[in-house]
């Protein structure tokens, strides 16, 4: 089963299909695109590029979700 390292934890995807892009990954995890900062292998991915940024097996991904309050 293909897996990604997300926020330090290995995350397996059933059915041999990895999400193809950052946008698909966020959809699969039901994360609101407007409130998440994504880093793939230490590189920031801008929100406008979520849909065109490919995901590959073995990558390390940080998804920082912001909730309101400050």
């Amino acid at each position, binding site marked *: 089963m293909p897996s990604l390292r997300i926020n330090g934890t290995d995350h397996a995807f059933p059915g041999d299909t990895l999400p193809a892009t950052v946008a698909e990954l966020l959809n699969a995890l039901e994360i609101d695109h407007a409130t998440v*900062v994504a880093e793939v292998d*230490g590189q*920031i991915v801008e*929100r406008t590029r979520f849909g065109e940024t490919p995901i590959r097996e073995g990558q390390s991904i940080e998804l920082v979700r*912001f909730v309101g*309050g*400050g």
Partner: protein
Amino acid sequence: MRPVFFELQQATVGIAGLGGLGSNVAVALTRLGPGRLVVVDFDCVEADNLNRQQYFLDQVGMHKVDAMLENLRRIRPDVEVVAHKVRLDPGNIPAVFADCDVVAECFDRSDQKQMLVETLLSRLARTVVVSVSGLAGYGRSNAIQTRRISPRHILVGDGVSGIGPGVPLTAARVGIAAHHQANAVIEVLLEQWSPD
């Protein structure tokens, strides 16, 4: 007043937003001693802010940047502050914080936090960002943590406690998060500092 850390006198720290987080970060850092602060907020002090923000009743109606400058100078008359009364957006963020070694993200809304952190990390090459997610409510002090996400991004908070019905922002818990933030800023600056 003698600063706590002479090593920090060359440092510049940005504070984006002067609400519950930013006003507490600004006061703590002024006492600790970075050379220069860049503070940004477009809002005015409201009576409702006084339950957690570092302003006084007679400052209601003032711009937060003006009120904060007044308060910081009462603590340390020689504090060097660059104040901007602007609404931050991806167009002006890189210029406003260009000289900052570290920027504290002190916004309220989740989408604005996202916008600020993404812009700082993608447009500025060396600035470290200390952001906050999850500080609403009361109690659960030890759930608020400081975590290094990547070399230039440090995240404070419990990650889940957003503001909502029955989950207010309170002085004590906001203060805990703000002081985690100020503490992380100092840690980053002292790690970066070199005697030459």
